């Protein structure tokens, strides 16, 4: 995960929301990875646009961190 100082005010709020809601998604699905969670958020119409931007950014960072 990332330091929230990378984001401006509104995107930082989205990032905080994403972090806070992750445990509820884990409870809902029993087990879900961080990446899978972010992918799901990107697909859902209910997700706010700024939250999607943060999710996409986090996903790309997770992908580049996992590359050999």
């Amino acid at each position, binding site marked *: 995960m990332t330091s929230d100082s*990378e*984001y*401006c*005010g*509104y*995107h930082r*709020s*989205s990032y905080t*929301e*994403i972090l*806070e*809601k992750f445990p*509820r*998604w884990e*409870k*809902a*699905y*029993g087990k879900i990875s961080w990446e899978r969670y972010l992918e799901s*958020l990107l697909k*859902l119409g*209910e*997700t*706010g*646009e*700024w*939250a999607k*931007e*943060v999710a996409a*950014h986090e996903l790309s960072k997770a992908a580049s961190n996992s590359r050999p």
Partner: protein
Amino acid sequence: MTEYYGPSFNSLRSGYTLVVTEKPDAARRIAAALGKFSKLEKERVEYYDVVSAFDGKRYLVCSAAGHLYGLADPEKNRGIYPVLDVEWFPLSSISMSRKRSARAMGKRTGQEGFYVSRRIHAISNLARNANSFVQACDYDIEGETIGFNILEFACGMKSQTNVLRARFSTLTEGEIRSAFSNLEIMDRKLATAGRARHVIDFLWGVNFSRALTEAVSSLSGYRMITIGRVQGPTLAFVVDREISILTHVPVPYWSLVSKLEKDGVEFSARYIDPRIEEKNRAEEIYSAVSKEESAEVNSVTKSKRFQPPPYPFNLGDLQKEAFRIYKLSPSVVLAAAEKLYLKALISYPRTDSQKLPPSIGYPDIIDGLAKNRSYARLVADLRREVGDRLVPRQGPSNDPAHPAIYPTGESSGADNLDHAPSLVYDLVARRFLSAFARDAIFEESEALLDIAGYKFVSSGSNLISSGWTGFYPYYKMGSENKLPELRESEGVKVLAVELSEKREERPSRYSQGSLLSKMESEGIGTKATRAETISTLFMRGYLDQSEGVKPTEVGMNLVEAMRLYCPTIISPKMTEQVEEEIDRIAKGENSEVSILAATTQSLCDVLTQLMEREKDLGAILNQIGPTSARKSETRERTKRAARSAPQSVEIGNCPVCKKGKLIAIRSFKTGKRFLGCSAYRSGCRASAPLPGRGSIKSANANCPSCGWPEILVIFTDRGRARSPWKLCPNVGCNTKRTRGASNDSISKDISG
């Protein structure tokens, strides 16, 4: 204490009494109600000469056309702030752009400048030989302000101690005659409060507009940014809602619904927990219940619910209902209601009251409505239902000036209304009738069922007595789920079980109706100004109406900037406090002077903060879109916007400063075009409006009358250029006063 003067008041016997009304239609109705009248003209402004049929007195009835006076900065230098001195001026002498924007906002202002000055002049002439005066403008804070200003400035009455007040809530003949038979001594408190509000709003608006405009223009060229005392918090509500939508992260949950059947009647029942938060648990329950073919009824409860009629309309409720049912915006509803009031079809619409006092005469109104074929049957139904027992449901809100909005029962003109007024009239008439009707009665049923050991609940609501809903049928009555007769321990058939995955919905955007409610609940604005505030925010390009009320990028940036550097401007608390202080002036509990002094002090403190952070503020206001994590993308978008923007057109040398050039510019905010000087940042404020259509070129010539560079406006017809229109853009040029002047300078070289 209010004193009443009837026909025996001696000083009205000789000469005439000048009656000042707010609108020409009201003047005509008042004259007609008083007696046989003659319609006359003074300086092409109509007035009515009438000898009252009931007291023999002579009245001259004249009218304004809304506000004839407005506030302006006596220095008239648009570049300077803070502005702390204001004066009342005839609207004809205030700048053209302010009047146009005021008209566009639907403010109750006078018409063109010459029309206003003619009207003021006519009233002044009529006042010269009047023995006494009656203020007969609408009885609310704005009406008091309009009348007070006319009496002070046009009629020269500074003290207004011998001015009487006619108070009425409808323009029916009976009520006007009653008002004139019971004239009151004028109470200055309401007018003082109204004038104080105008001053506070003006000081607030002009200073913040100039401060914000300076901040943004100093970095990127002239661009006007304005914000008002009530607009700021209202815009912030919409922005905050948009932020909660944009940052929304949904959480999944599951719901189980079973479809059941008994005696051929299908009905549904949901699992007792409407939100199952774990998928495993939801699937476990589904797996168990979906195999079952029958469910057992554990318990059945039935009860009757009595739903009383809705409250009589105040303005806010009428606007919200008209938006909910017909999608009429609050400002359209207010305009329609005012038209209906001026036709004497409804009572005064600007009221907070939800109460209908018996003094309005319920039986006469209902008898009047019975003569209208649209309501004859409804009235017959009502009489059958309640007989002579006419006791309306009363709401909690009160207004000392006027009752709730009600139909007068007059039939003249009720059949010949435009679209919006006819819809509004129908709502008012039906809501009024429904207030007297009986409660609607529902039978509520709830059954608890067991499927494979899991509890399901089914509820239904049936309308068994329509009551008031027959008169006001705009609510969904009952539920779609109709339960059959169920008994404990009996079995019902399970047709299907459905497992659905759902997500928490995003917050929904405000509608104009719900935004109005939000403003009411936060105590900002007044019943008369809330709709206008919302319209103004649309007009200024801060709000957009697409999929609900949404802030534009400019609106978002503005609130973001204010939140960082001047949160007072968008604080509902601050503006609520101002409204409370104005109410206290109206009640005589505080003085105008002390409140204005306190406001001026707060204003200076806030402006000082703004001045100190002008550069940072300007930087934020100049951004296109919100501050983004991907700053490079923002820069790219900015460059693309700059490339696609139309090139500015140089017209000629600036005749005011003689240093800069006059350039045709399109306003970023409004999309409108105007001429501005390139030396704006050096202090030159030369500007002129431009036609909205056609391409603009320099005529390469100066106006022979005033010396401004002339322009050519070229329209196209099916792709072909038509003969250009040559004109001087200077609004003060003498050539504008000449009518029918031929354009003998048409250039044949269209491309030049």
